């Protein structure tokens, strides 16, 4: 639990740091940052020269599939994938079987992660009981059990009245509401983004306005009720605009996007590639540009993966029948670092969006390397080039459109509470 990380480039936006420093960790806590620190007796030394040393990365949107859907992923494999990708914390969504709508399920997840997992797991409880969109779950008790937010992720809360009341009630309990913004009547039987590609390959489209209308509704409900809201997986240019305008008005709205939304367009679906099928669907070039602009100007606060493991049998089928979602924990860092390479983000902004901001939004006491903080630290090499190989992924599922991609940048060490979980 004690380590000396020597000679790395320490980037910690929480204290405005970007310089070559040593980091001393003692008994799982950050003891000291400084130049030329020497290792106390018995303390392991990690050479970080040429590497970036940042507050442990937090992925605030993953599906661990445990309990109930362990054939896709479980807490052990999911957190192993997280650690491999440089994440020290993940927030897992409640669409498990049973749903995380009560204290017992939340506790099961937290306890299993503590005893068998490779990183911190902060569950997200459901907004509604059973995620059925009918009545609120016990948000107070969910928070007490350790949930950091509530969401019916995977589906929207259709009733505007129930969403309004949930925002109000959650505010009272001090727990964040994460909105899955989607107007189901506009989505219908759609299987991919509605646009020229869907026209040409003859798949039913999901119009971008299906997301935008729901984003606008939830932002307006947050504004009306004075409650904070976080919009999950933003994928369209107009949703970015709606959130940007709301922020300018002072609405307490934050949001995230996922690496695939700034890396791919719906062209990736050509050939009926089910590993490019997710919800919201991959959009078009102008959306990708708007997502990047939103990341750059701070409209989009976080990069989260929406890591959604599915079994091969659920993907190696006809397109319309295939499940939505892709895995992302092990490719998020290099795909996000590509934005730094491209000049969209600075490294400081990247660390904010992948660590500091998620910790702030969800009030998770992480995202900082200040002395006295829990020693969750990620070391990554921004220059190393590697090829994404399905065989080498830690996740139980391999449903990624990035298999075979040559990428740049990789986590080289993941440290959770001073313990090296991946090296």
């Amino acid at each position: 639990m004690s380590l000396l990380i020597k000679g790395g480039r320490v980037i910690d936006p929480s204290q405005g740091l970007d310089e070559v420093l040593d980091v001393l960790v003692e008994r799982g806590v950050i003891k000291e940052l400084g130049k030329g620190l020497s290792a106390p007796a018995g303390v392991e030394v990690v050479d970080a020269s040429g590497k970036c040393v940042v507050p442990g990365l937090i992925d605030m949107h993953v599906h661990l599939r445990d309990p109930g859907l362990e054939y896709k992923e479980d807490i052990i494999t999911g957190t192993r994938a997280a650690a491999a990708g440089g994440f020290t914390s993940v927030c897992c969504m409640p669409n498990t079987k049973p749903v995380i709508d009560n204290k017992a399920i939340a506790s099961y997840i937290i306890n299993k992660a503590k005893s068998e997992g490779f990183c911190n797991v902060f569950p997200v409880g459901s907004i509604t009981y059973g995620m059925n969109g009918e009545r609120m779950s016990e948000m107070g008790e969910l928070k007490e059990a350790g949930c950091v937010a509530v969401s019916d992720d995977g589906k929207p809360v259709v009733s505007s009245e129930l969403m309004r009341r949930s925002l109000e009630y959650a505010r009272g309990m001090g727990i964040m509401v994460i909105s899955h913004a989607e107007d189901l009547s506009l989505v219908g039987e759609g299987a991919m983004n509605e646009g020229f590609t869907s026209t040409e390959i003859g798949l039913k489209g999901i119009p971008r306005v299906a997301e935008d209308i729901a984003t606008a509704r939830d932002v307006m409900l947050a504004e009306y009720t004075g409650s904070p809201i976080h919009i999950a997986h933003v994928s369209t240019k107009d949703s970015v605009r709606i959130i940007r305008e709301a922020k300018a008005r002072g609405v307490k709205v934050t949001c995230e996007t996922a690496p695939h939304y700034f890396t791919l367009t719906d062209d990736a679906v050509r050939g009926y590639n089910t590993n490019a099928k997710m919800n919201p669907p991959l959009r078009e070039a102008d959306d990708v540009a708007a997502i990047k602009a939103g990341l750059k100007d701070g409209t989009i606060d976080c990069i989260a993966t929406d890591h959604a493991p599915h079994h091969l049998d659920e993907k190696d089928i006809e397109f319309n029948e295939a499940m939505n979602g892709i895995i992302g924990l092990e490719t998020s860092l290099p795909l996000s670092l590509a934005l730094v390479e491209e000049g969209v983000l600075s490294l400081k902004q990247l660390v904010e969006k992948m660590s500091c901001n998620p910790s702030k939004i969800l009030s998770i006491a992480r995202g900082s390397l200040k002395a006295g903080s829990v020693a969750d630290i990620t070391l990554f090499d921004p220059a190393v080039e590697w090829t994404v190989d399905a065989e080498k992924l830690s996740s139980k599922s391999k449903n990624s459109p990035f298999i075979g991609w040559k990428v740049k940048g990789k986590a080289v060490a993941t440290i959770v509470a001073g313990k090296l979980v991946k090296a």
Partner: protein
Amino acid sequence: MEFRHKDIIALRDLTKEEIELLISTAENMREINSRDIKKVPTLRGKTIINLFYEASTRTRTSFEIAGKRLSADTVNITTSSSSSTKGETLADTALNLLAMKPDIIVMRHAVSGSHYFLSKKMPNCSIINAGDGTHEHPSQGLLDMLTMKDRFGRLDGLKVAIVGDITHSRVARSNIQGLTKMGSQIFVAGPPTMVPPGVEKLGNVTSCATMKEAIQDADVVMMLRIQQERQGKTLMPNTREYSRYFGLNPVNLKFAKPDAMVMHPGPINRGVEMSSAVVDGDQSHILKQVENGVAVRMAMLYHVCGGELE
């Protein structure tokens, strides 16, 4: 010229020369169909499975006759369940059929792109698309082009109007892909609820605001079948109003060229997309399309089996 494709899934995947080859082979095949004994030994010993996950009379019968006239052994499988939630998955069905060593599978399936999926699972068997979801229906596109060529002797420079539910029409997509390659001009019209985004980028396509605009001076007026089950849903109020604005009748047919040909892929909703007077009128080539369907499908079966045009 040799036809180098294992499968025929979409006219989008074929070159102009390959489409010309299929059409000219079909022209030659017609001679067989006019004989007293309508059978040649070309595909003797070949096994063709017609695997239909959607109801079809015309297309399935046409493919079956095409196979039989070339002396292939044809087997028909018609199943209503195309969902992996009930019954066997398409992949498992494919593997089981593959174990019986067919040479060609002719499939109709409700999911766009499922033929590409099937083809990957069956590297040694040819796949012919008899219609996939709202993607393509290449045999229909080819037989339509053959019928137009019969009438005008060419496809280049023809003005073809396609009217109806373009969004959900695999017939429209195959015609647009094929006709664009052959140098025709395509004009589409339908209520905006039935015209997909980016339709003009599909090929040499102009999207028209009204039916009149689309059929003005057209050489060919192709009417699409309106799915009755869409009535009363969100795409149109009812077939009565649809037929008033997008139905072909002897009055609006006059906007087309005097010798324009009228086509329809069938089955027809008489009185909805076309009045009976037009269906049965002098300008109708609808039954000619059906007749050409057999020859075109013979050509497709012949070429995926490696046949060469003499």
